[in-house]
């Protein structure tokens, strides 16, 4: 008889306390890491969809090509040569082509990770269905980012081939421009995903345009940094596309120095932050 009361606490942890500790654990634990195998299943799904819509994929290749023909070759004929920030005089077409390659990597990644993801998230409710399976929110974020990167890699490779055919590639370093563009794609896709998770309506996408267009026009795409007064130079150097363009340009022209490590680091950190915030936001949106 006297034994039973002291036994009670050891047998029963008490529902309230156990409940508290389990929710506490959920709050303390970081997001579960994405599994490569599970994330790849979302890529498989997108491949299945685009097997019917491969023309749509092809279209993403033409836009930068048209820019290259119009600005690079057309305006290039008027400009002649330009002196880069590294102090080397190069043909204007050679100067502009890598910047267009980097910009198209950004554009592709941003469109895929904003418009497409927003549609799947809010209208198609795709991820609600996906998350009822073993896939988690971080798998979804990683899978969609991977898909955006694969498309980006495809575009970059074909773009580089066109540049090669037009005689715009100056160095073997240029091969590394493909992984560089994938890195640009990763950084922008991850941040795009994070931004999309905060969007309430299609109107919010005006902000995407507002961020993308000035970057495209002013990030040393069409002229070197030295054109700007010093204060503005600092501003431009803070923006991500600047680092993407400088990275790709230095690889394609073969004017390579240690500064490319700084560009790489910038883009890696940007992508990692985007992915962490994006996964967390997806989890709060979908796992209510």
């Amino acid at each position: 008889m006297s034994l039973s009361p002291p036994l009670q606490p050891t047998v029963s942890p008490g529902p309230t306390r156990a409940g508290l500790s389990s929710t506490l654990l959920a709050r303390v634990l970081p997001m579960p890491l994405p599994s490569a195998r599970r994330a790849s299943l979302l890529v498989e799904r997108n491949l299945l969809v685009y097997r019917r819509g491969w023309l749509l994929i092809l279209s993403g290749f033409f836009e930068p090509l048209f820019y290259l023909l119009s600005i690079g070759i057309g305006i290039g004929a008027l400009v002649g040569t330009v002196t880069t920030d590294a102090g080397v005089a190069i043909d204007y077409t050679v100067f502009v082509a890598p910047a267009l390659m980097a910009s198209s990597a950004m554009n592709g990644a941003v469109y895929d990770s904003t418009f497409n993801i927003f549609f799947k998230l809010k209208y198609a409710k795709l991820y609600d269905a996906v998350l009822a399976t073993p896939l988690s929110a971080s798998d979804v974020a990683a899978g969609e980012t991977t898909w955006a990167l694969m498309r980006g890699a495809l575009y970059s490779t074909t773009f580089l081939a066109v540049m090669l055919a037009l005689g715009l590639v100056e160095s073997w370093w240029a091969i590394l421009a493909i992984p560089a563009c994938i890195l640009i794609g990763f950084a922008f896709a991850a941040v795009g995903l994070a931004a999309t998770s905060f969007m309430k309506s299609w109107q919010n996408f005006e902000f995407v345009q507002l961020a993308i267009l000035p970057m495209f026009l002013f990030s040393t795409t069409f002229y070197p940094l030295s054109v700007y007064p010093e204060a503005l130079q600092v501003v431009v150097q803070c923006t991500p596309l600047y680092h993407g363009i400088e990275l790709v340009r230095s690889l394609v022209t073969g004017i390579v120095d240690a500064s490319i490590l700084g560009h790489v680091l910038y883009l890696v950190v940007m992508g990692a932050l985007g992915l962490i915030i994006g996964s967390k936001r997806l989890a709060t949106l979908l796992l209510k």
Partner: protein
Amino acid sequence: MIEPASLTQDAAVDNRDAFEVGPGVEELVWARGLRKTFGDFTAVDGIDISVRRGEAFGFLGPNGAGKSSTMRMIGAVSPATEGRLRILGRDPVTDGPAIRARLGVVPQTDNLDQELTVRENLLIYGRYFGIPRAQIRARAAELLDFVQLTERADDLVEPLSGGMKRRLTIARSLINEPEMLLLDEPTTGLDPQARHALWDRLFRLKQRGVTLVLTTHYMDEAEQLCDRLVVMDKGRIAAEGSPAELIGTYSTREVLELRFPAGENEAHAGGLADLADRIEVLPDRLLLYTDDGDAAATAVVERGLHPASVLVRRSSLEDVFLRLTGRSLVD
């Protein structure tokens, strides 16, 4: 000698919850003090649930009662705010993917993949579970047959009717051969033919030993499908039992419905109160809850009253539901 022993036993039964540290082997869902809040709003307010293997368990309740929130927690896609929850014996906080691998989920609104065909929907969903392609293909063919969609296998999802989409969602939920199927209002918005076709499929699944957990606000659905159910209201469990038990506990065997000319119903209620266990006055009729409806009807006539219409019917789950959750409209 006997009395003290039985007393101890009763005490043990009463304190069962306090001693219980986890679910039994056959309890696929086990929740104690489960709560879910969204900001200031409490959707689920401390409920205890046990769903045993092989049974069909229903959550019945008006809109906003907390059914869907509970289902999402059981589906391991929504973390509980408080309380203890075990699904298939595991903790959803730590074992979410492993739990979801063995569940089938039919959500309230269809979320089929609109960009894919009927068959592709099943194929890719099976892939999400990591099932080999050849195996999924065979299973998809069987499932399409099971839900009578073989002829539409290569059509896109969008042009399908509501009933077909629902059937495809059910087929999709079965692609991983789940041990437990979670259905959130499976037949809402379907025409009677489609509802009966779905019930038939769900009944067959139950016969195969699949545990069914469903929410509904259709009483006939609950009576048709559920072995046991809970009535939820405002985030709490208002009652629990089999449909027959609930009717036995919360209603009488029969109900006598009397219609008097408009405006007179209220006036007659007082004079008839002694004929029934409980009397309810509605704007258009009186409901007399009694075990013998015919006897009560005879008594009414003997008192010289002549209602415009007299109907004796068996008590239904709907009577229980309305008694427990009230008649006022819930939005």
